[in-house]
C-alpha cells in the first residue's frame, strides 16, 4: 500500500471493498485517499463527509441521481472548485499522501498533475494543433512539440482524423471529435490522473462508444475518475463504482457516498438498499 501511514484508517466509514475479481489487487496503490471531504457553498452543505480511496490505473465511476454532488466532488480532486468564491472545503484529499488543500499547495500545480475533461466539449478557439500546444508551451514542454502533439492526438484516437488539418480550428470538429481533442489536451501535459465530468453526456451514441473505448485504453497509463449519470456507462468502463445519493435527513440536502465497491458488486449484489433501488431503476 502506498497509503500514508500517518492517516488513521480506523475512523473511516466501513466500506467493504471486494478483492476477488482482480488478481493481485490487494497491492494496488492508492492515488487519492479522500478523508471526510465536505463542501459548503456559502452556508449550504453540498457534499458531506465523503471518504473514498481511488486506485492507481483504475477507472473509478461516480454515479447517482442529479444534484447529488458527483460533479462537485470530482471538482474537489483538482481544486477546480477554487473558482467558486463561496465554496469552502473541509476534510482532506490526500494525493499520494499529500493534502491537496494543504496551506503550501498551489492549485495551479495540482492541475498539472490532475487533468480534467469537462461535460461539454470546450476546445479553445484556436487551431487543433494550438489547442494542445498552448498548454505545453506555457508549462515549458517545448521540446519536440510536434511529437508531443501527435502522441497526444494518437492516444486520444484522433490523429488519423485530424492529421491533415492541424491548422484548422478546433471548433470546426464534430462534438465527439472536440471531446477527444479535449482528452488529448489533458493527456498532453502528462498528468497522473484524468478527471472526467460526464464526458459523453453531450455526445451521440457512436461518439460515446469511442470515448468509452478510449477510457479503456487510457487506464493503462492513467488513473481515471469519471462522473456519469449513465449507469450502463459506469458498468461498461469502470473497475470501481461509487454510488452517491442525496441525504435529505435533518432538514439538509447534501450529497453523501452510499456505497463504494467493485463495479460488478455494485450492479449485481449491492449492499445498500438505496444502491439497489437506483441500479435496478426503481429510483433516479
Amino acid at each position, binding site marked *: 500500500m502506498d497509503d500514508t501511514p500517518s492517516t488513521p484508517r480506523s475512523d473511516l466509514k466501513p466500506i467493504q471493498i471486494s478483492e476477488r475479481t482482480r488478481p493481485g489487487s490487494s497491492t494496488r496503490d492508492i492515488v487519492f485517499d479522500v478523508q471526510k471531504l465536505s463542501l459548503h457553498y456559502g452556508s449550504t452543505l453540498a457534499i458531506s463527509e465523503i471518504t473514498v480511496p481511488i486506485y492507481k490505473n483504475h477507472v473509478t465511476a461516480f454515479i447517482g441521481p442529479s444534484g447529488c454532488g458527483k460533479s462537485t466532488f470530482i471538482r474537489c480532486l*483538482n481544486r*477546480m472548485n477554487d*473558482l467558486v*468564491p463561496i465554496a469552502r472545503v473541509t476534510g482532506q484529499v490526500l494525493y499520494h499522501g499529500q493534502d491537496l488543500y494543504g496551506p503550501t499547495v498551489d492549485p*495551479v*500545480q*495540482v*492541475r*498539472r*498533475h490532475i*487533468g*480534467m475533461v*469537462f461535460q*461539454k466539449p*470546450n*476546445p*479553445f*478557439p*484556436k487551431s487543433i494543433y494550438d489547442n494542445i500546444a*498552448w*498548454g505545453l508551451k*506555457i*508549462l515549458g514542454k517545448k521540446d519536440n512539440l510536434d511529437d508531443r502533439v501527435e502522441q497526444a492526438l494518437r492516444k486520444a484516437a484522433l490523429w488519423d482524423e485530424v492529421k491533415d488539418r492541424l491548422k484548422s480550428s478546433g*471548433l470546426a470538429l464534430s462534438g465527439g471529435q472536440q471531446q477527444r481533442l*479535449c482528452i488529448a*489536451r*489533458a493527456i*498532453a*501535459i502528462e498528468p497522473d490522473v484524468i478527471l472526467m465530468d460526464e464526458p459523453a453526456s453531450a455526445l451521440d451514441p457512436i461518439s460515446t462508444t469511442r470515448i468509452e473505448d478510449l477510457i479503456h485504453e487510457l487506464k493503462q497509463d492513467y488513473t481515471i475518475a469519471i462522473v456519469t449519470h449513465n449507469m450502463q456507462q459506469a458498468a461498461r468502463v469502470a473497475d470501481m463504482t461509487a454510488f452517491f445519493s442525496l441525504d435529505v435527513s435533518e432538514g439538509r440536502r447534501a450529497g453523501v457516498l452510499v456505497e463504494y465497491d467493485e463495479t460488478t458488486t455494485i450492479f449485481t449484489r449491492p449492499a445498500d438498499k438505496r444502491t439497489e433501488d437506483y441500479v435496478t431503476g426503481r429510483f433516479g
Partner: protein
Amino acid sequence: MSTLPTSANGPDVPPIFHVDRRLKRRKIVNRLMEGVSTLAALLAVAVLVLLVGSVVVRGASAFNGAFFTQVASGDFLNPAGGGIAHAIVGSAVIVLLATLIAVPVGVLVAIYTSEFARPQVAGIVRLCLDVLNGIPSIVIGIFIFGLLVVGRGQAAWIASVALSVIMLPLIARSTQEVLTLVPLTLREAALGVGVAKWRMVIGIVIPASLGGIMTGVSLAIARVAGETAPILFTSSIAVNQISTDVSHALQTIPVLIFTYSESPEPADHAKAWGGAILLIGFVLFTSVLSRMLMSRMKRRLEGGARGELLGRVTGLLGLFRRPSA
C-alpha cells in the same frame, strides 16, 4: 344572432371564434400601436437621412483634391482654394495618441474588474466608470485645461490626454461586457491544463474576445473623433501647417468646423460642411467596422450562447450615447 356566421354544424351551434365588440376594439388598438411605432421608426431613419443629406449637399462643393491634400490657403483672392489637410492630420494624430493612452489602461481596468477584483470592488469600479462616462466633455476639457494647459500653453498631446479620459470609461466598460461573454467552460479548460490565471487571461480570454474589444475601441474612437469641447481648451490655437509635432497645438476637424462656420467667407462655410461629411463618413466606417469585428468574435466563440451574445451587444451599443456637452 343574425350577425354571427353560421357554423358548419347548423345554426344552433354557436361558433367558437365569433367576432364580438371587444375583439374589434382589440384589433383597432393593435393596428394603432403598430402604426405609431412604425411611424417613430421611420422618423428616426428620416432624421439621419435628412442630416446626412443636408450635410452632403452643402459640403460636396468643397470636396476636391486640394481639400484633402492642401492646407488653408490664406489667399484672400482665392478663398475657395486650399484644403483642410492640416486638420485631418491633426485629428488623426491626436486621436491616435489618445487611443494609445486609453486602450491599455481601459483594457487593464476591465481585466481587473472582471477577472481579479472581488464582486463588491468590481461593482464600485463599474459605478465610477459609468459616472466618468456621464461627465460632459466640456467639464473634462476645463479640468485638463486647469491641470495641464495653464502655465504651459496648448499642445496636441494635452488634447490627447483629454480625449483619452473620455475614451477610458467607454473602452473599459465595453471590454468588461465582452470579457463576461467568454464562457466559463473556456476558462475552466484553460485552468484545467494547469496554467496560472494571468496566462489564462492573456492566452485564452483576451484572444477569444479580441473582436469585441476592438468593437468597443473603434466605437470609442468614433465618439472622440468628433469631440470639440476638450480640444477648444487644449489644441485650438494652431498654425495652418501639416504637422505631427504633438508638443504644439494642432488643428483638428471639429475645431475647424467650429471656427470656419463663423467665418465671414462663404468658401469657409463649404469647407466646414466638407469637414462634417468627413466626420460622418468616419463614424459610418467605424460603425460598420465594429459590426464586422463583433460578428467575427461571435463566429470564433461559436457554440457559446449566441442569443445571449446578441442581446449583450445591443446593450453595449447603448453605452455610446452622446451626453450633451
